[in-house]
């Protein structure tokens, strides 16, 4: 794994430290600024909600922090590694070892069963949770050998959660995980996420445009027009079952 060491370890005890992160698409007059000078710090085991309307830059930031995309300028520190200066292979290794992803549209492999979708990731993880155990955790112990087409949307998303947690990731990146779900199934998915956050101590970054969901987080980062408008701490995290949307 290629690692860019930094003698001064700018993050200290932080999981992430972002300095003046910009993301620009295009050049000159046609340039679109998706992110402008974003500074952000994320603590270990924190549950951070990125909230904002669509196009506000929250997903772009998540993609950059997840190693799916690169900042145009600025620094993105994960521990003592600078993601901004990593090459493609190093970013792949970063995603492989550190990050669990959950997407709005599940992104399961249709030709693999629930168990196999989890095993797919376990094959490249160092010390994974057995697939059956991971699926048990999200309440799918009875549906191990079902293919995605045989599962409901909520079940598919919980398979995705199981897939993300099986590698015991340091970070969980969730992009609108309940966006395609109704309330009841959405709550079950969120419960699974909260459970993982508390049980494994994973740092959890959750992108949503739903203000109610934001009540789940330790802190809520509000986005507008490619910048952070405010960062609020929740004195008390809400339980998923308290949410309504």
């Amino acid at each position, binding site marked *: 794994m290629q690692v860019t060491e930094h003698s001064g370890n700018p993050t200290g005890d932080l999981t992430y430290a972002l300095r003046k992160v910009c993301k620009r698409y295009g050049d000159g007059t046609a340039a679109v600024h998706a992110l402008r000078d974003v500074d952000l710090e994320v603590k270990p085991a924190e549950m951070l909600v990125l909230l904002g309307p669509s196009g506000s830059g929250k*997903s772009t930031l998540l*993609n950059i922090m*997840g190693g*799916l*995309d690169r900042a145009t300028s600025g620094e993105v520190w994960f521990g003592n590694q600078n993601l901004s200066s990593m090459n*493609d*292979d190093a970013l*792949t*290794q*970063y*995603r*492989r*070892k550190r*990050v669990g*992803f959950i*997407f*709005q*549209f599940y*992104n*399961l*492999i*249709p*030709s*693999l*069963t629930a168990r*196999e979708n989890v*095993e*797919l*990731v376990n*094959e*490249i993880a160092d010390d994974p949770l057995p697939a059956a155990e991971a699926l048990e955790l999200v309440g799918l112990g009875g549906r191990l050998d079902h*293919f*995605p*087409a*045989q599962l409901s949307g909520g079940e598919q998303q919980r398979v995705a959660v199981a*897939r993300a947690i099986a590698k015991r990731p340091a970070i969980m990146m969730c*992009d609108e995980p309940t966006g395609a779900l109704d309330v009841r199934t959405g709550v079950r998915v969120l419960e699974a996420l909260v459970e993982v956050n508390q049980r494994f101590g994973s740092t959890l970054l959750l992108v949503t445009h739903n203000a109610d969901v934001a009540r789940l987080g330790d802190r809520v980062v509000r986005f507008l027009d490619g910048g952070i408008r405010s960062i609020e701490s929740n004195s008390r995290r809400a339980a998923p079952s308290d949410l309504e949307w």
Partner: protein
Amino acid sequence: MRVLDRKVLRDLWRMRINVFAIVLVLGCGVAILVMAVGMRGSLERTRLNYYAVYKMADLAVSLVRAPANIANALAAVPGVSAVETRVTGLALLDLPGVKEPASAHLVSLPRIGRPRVNDLSLAQGRWPDPDRADEVLVNEALATANGFQLGEELAATLHGQRHTLRIVGIANSPEFVFVTAPGEIFPQQDRFGVIWMGEEALARAYDLEGAFNNAVFRLSPEVDSVKIKRAIDVALAPYGSAGAYDRDRMPSDRFLTEELGQLATMAAFLPTFFIVIAAFLVNISLTRIIAAERSNIGLLKAFGYSDRAVATHYAKGALLMAAGAAALGSVAGWLLGRMMASVYQEYYRFPRLEFEASAGVYAGALGIAVACAVAGSLTAVIAAVRLAPAAALAPPPPTSFGSNSAMLRSFSSHLDAKSRIILRRIVRFPRRSATTVIGISLAIAVLVLAGTFPAVMERLMHVNFTEANRQDVSLSFVDAREMSVVHGVMNLPGVILVEPGRADRVILHHAGKSVEETLIGLLPDARLSRLVDARLEVIHPPAAGIALARALAEKLDASPGDLLEIEQTRGRRLITHARVATIVDPMVGASAYMEIDALARLMREPGLITGVNVRLDAAQYDRFNAAIKEAPALAGASFINLAERSMRENFDRGVGVMNFIYLSFASVMAGGVAFSAARITLAEQERDLATLRVLGFTRLEVSYVLVGELAALGLLAVVPGVIAGTLIGEWLMKLFSNDLYSFPYVFNAAGYAVAIGFALGCVAAAAMLVRTGVDRLDMVGVLKARD
């Protein structure tokens, strides 16, 4: 232009690489069709036209000697519209700068005017002056092969006397479109030709002054040739007539008919084969392209476009591709046809052979291209149009991968997840996998076929020139000679071994069928000229009776034990009988065979032979040739080394060019199939592959999923491809076998290896090319969009 039409053009542009592959492959099929069908038509038309304009004989007859005034009686036979009496003979030629003697067929020209039958077209020079005995015309093939110039002199031995002939013109005749020496199977244009000279000079040389020994006839339309032949035979009976015969027994026409038959086989088979492959490929591509257009179809329907309008919209795209393929294929076919015509022109001496495909051929090509494209897109368009707009707009439900057989489950449990993805996709989409496998196997089959032809020709040459004919030279005599001539030949310089030979041109009759063939006398325990079958085993002559080659036996409907009537075609026109002893399968030639002495007795010429086979001391080659150039009794000398060389040259230029064209097209097809399959697989899997990348799989690991599927399909195609290629090859060889050769199917391991290697190489190259798409996968984009 309507917006929807603009969309058609933009869609084609967007998918230009796939479109290009489809157009190229379909275009190949069309090109082969235009070339093969057009070439066959061109040759047939050219022959018909040539025969009509230059008055090709309908009947011919050879005789010993008839007085010139008999011509009037022949012309008076009802139904005969023209007759030309001639003097013909064979001569040995001593060509400048050539060691071995060549030979020529000599034909007389009338003193006044042009021949009324079998007229000549003068390619160069002028007609001979009837008062100059030494002025001659030579046929264009011989002149070109030897680089003869007008005014050049040739030394020729006519009837035992040496003459010096001067070339004043170069000509072609419908009688000699294809020139082979009597008894030879393979043409040697540089070694056997035709010389036309004044009637008086030729008659003098052959002691036939005021007489003729050959006549050719044109008949009035729609007359009964049987009656006319009978009348001619009656009129010529006192003069040693060998019997009048029809055009189908004239050597050049017979050969041309055989060749046209082969061309017809190819014109029917090969384009069909290529078009079927092309249709297949178009189907694979279009079905998958249109399946990807599902949401657009839903959108159009939601806007209120009718099913018909939507179907027409997609059909237009297919039709445009078909039109492109037809245009490309027609131009390529026309160019290839012209190229083939110039190759054929070297073999078939027509005054002008121009490739010309009729409008019908081009229209047919367009029709077939359109049919392929429409058939290819039909199922997909219908399926898409049938969906309710809302269903079409919504993403398709995740494909169900439910019901796998227990066997497959236990097998896949041994695989890693990535290999399981590959396996499940192949099994889950059996039709799609099957079409790709069939496409690649057809490409392998074509390549196997293309590799088989040269191997078969190589085997044929090996058998003929190494196993069967182990002599260095075959000498044939003007008349049958006593066996003692063998001693005379033995005394020629450089001769190591001499074996007698005998061949009689006969007509075999059985069960109401008649076939003119050569009855060959075989020497038991021959060391030089032997009859060999496809397994390289020597066929021995039967102790008694006659052995028939299978093709000949079939033509005569004869089996062992049947009594054949045998009619001599020269001299006394003896009619005799012999029983069929056995059926044999020689590889080259399809004649009748007897033990040599038995044959001589059957022909009532005991102890007489018609030629000898000679093994030479290579060091004395030149001295031997110098000696036989002077020999009066020789009608011809056939040199095995020269025959092999000219056959090889013929092959390289004729079949070789053809084969090269097919090989190129097969390669384009293999590449097209592989590339289309690869691109479409990438398009279908893009989302899954991007997801794998997001999950932290490396490019190499993700590429494995993509390339692995193609590799698996490619490997699955090997066995059916090889089997299909072999079966079609065997069938084609049977189809191509004719009177002259029986083509064995030769298992050519190297050819198979090349075919498999090339096809899989195409798959690998296509996979590698498409694999670069994995590097460009849009990881961010894929997470935003649904399936």
